């Protein structure tokens, strides 16, 4: 039973963290700058 409770607790903590992470990134991303050429990426 302790193991079940521990697993559920871990799952609950992770689920709360996951929910917060999703809420944080659900906002629309800003439009990219309107340039004809782009970097391969940024460091």
């Amino acid at each position, binding site marked *: 039973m302790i193991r*079940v409770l521990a697993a559920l607790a871990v799952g609950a903590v992770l689920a709360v963290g996951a929910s917060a992470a999703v809420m944080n990134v*659900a906002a629309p991303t800003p439009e990219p700058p309107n340039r004809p050429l782009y*970097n391969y990426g940024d460091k």
Partner: protein
Amino acid sequence: MRTEWGEAARRFAPALLGLLLGVLALWPALGPGFVLRYDMVFVPDPPLVPPGQGFPRAVPSDLVVALLSRVVPAEAVQKAVLLGIFVLAASGAAALVPSRRLGPRLVAAAFYAWNAYLAQRLLLGQWALLLGVAGLPWAVRAAALGGRLRLAAALIPAAVGGFQAMLVSAVAVLATAATAPAPAPAPGLGARVRRTGEAALIMGGLSLPWLVPALLSGATTDPAGVDAFAARADGPFGVAGSLLGLGGVWNAHATVPGQGSWWSAGVRLALAAVAIWGFVRLRGTRDGSRAGGVPYWTGLAVAAGAGLGVACLGAFAPGLLKALVGWWPGFGTIRDGQLHLAPFALLQAVGLASAADRWASRPAAAPRAVVAVTVAVAVAVPVLVLPTFALGAFGRLTAVPYPQEWRRVQEIVNGDPAPGALLSLPWGAHRAFRWNGGRVVLDPATKLFGRRVIWNDELLVGLPDGGRIRVAAEDPLAAKVGAVLRPGAPEPGPAGAGDRAGALLRLGVRYVLTRPGDNTFQDALTVFEGSELRLVRLSNPD
């Protein structure tokens, strides 16, 4: 009958889990159209063309896609490949777990198909590399079990993926072949040496499609790429912490949203610690005979350690790596060090399964509910740790249709039997189209046409201070064309653009694909002009 069904369900459950995770991760990418992001460029009706003169990065992957697209639409091929990566990765990781319990196998499947490494490489569009990553567990398994045909079959995904896919497989396969216990009829050092040699030959043979063009290409490697592609910190625990959590990709735009938070990075680090502990407890005796020991243990540990070392090299000893690249351009293959973390990801997947197995199996007579809850949580952990990988990393992987004018230009150029290259302008490798949601992608013109396409393969990588690293072009012809196009280049004389067109004609250029507002070649014949593209044909003044 019921037992047979149950056995079949157990056998295919990891693959099914991989499919479910793939659908969850790729949901917006599974609609009509193509997913276009960084290196991931699929085009409708891709032509069958030999590799260009630069380093053959998309060989033979593009050729295989072109062949498959003769049978089914290219967009279906892309979706099948992307989903196949998840299925192959999940089922392969599960196959490496020594436990017969389904739960731990599902844990390994979930982790290997849903981790920061796979997500970041997918967001960088490196589907061909991921073919090798997905096939890695199968290749390791084949190397441990022995058998030439089995190994060759397991390496097919890596062979299709090309040089990066084969590179991430090579160390793990060779190390496993060299260290796994030899089969009973011929145990000993000799059998291991022979098996390692055979593995090297098989990988060498499967690498020929890209190895030969690479050796003939004359491509060079700019040491500046070491700084550009070195692993970076994408969380609060620095470069080393990022790499241990399977992150650390060089490109800040290839990170999963929110992965840099304390919460995500911290949990991934904790998970890595648990996974490494779980893997260590799998260690058997040298001959693999001890219960719980796995024959691939040493090989995978060596490959994971080597991958982690290579990933650290660019970040902590860039001078050494630059010297190596300067000495032999082939060392350029390790400039993007984080790429080599794939065996470490596999090690963590197997280790996590081992830890879950231990957790769920004590006490021995644990009620089924205990096991079920524990396993369900363990399977969900990878998704909960990186939830924003779902839904195409929240829109970062989305399918879009090509505008009709791209198809029209493709028809015109591919319908012209006259030889001559196509030059793609503006003179830069990457684009961000409004119709693609502003997502940065390699110029699709590089894949659309059944003739040589000249494009600027110089890579620009932005720095936090606003500066940019320029990684020099590898294609010799691109360098020549770049010299002609450069403002103030000596080639254009009094006639200006006319001389530039002449210089391009002498370099074998027949078409120029550019923007409608570009009047550089105003004297040339405009074959097509749309809202986004202008196609001009150069011709000799008679």
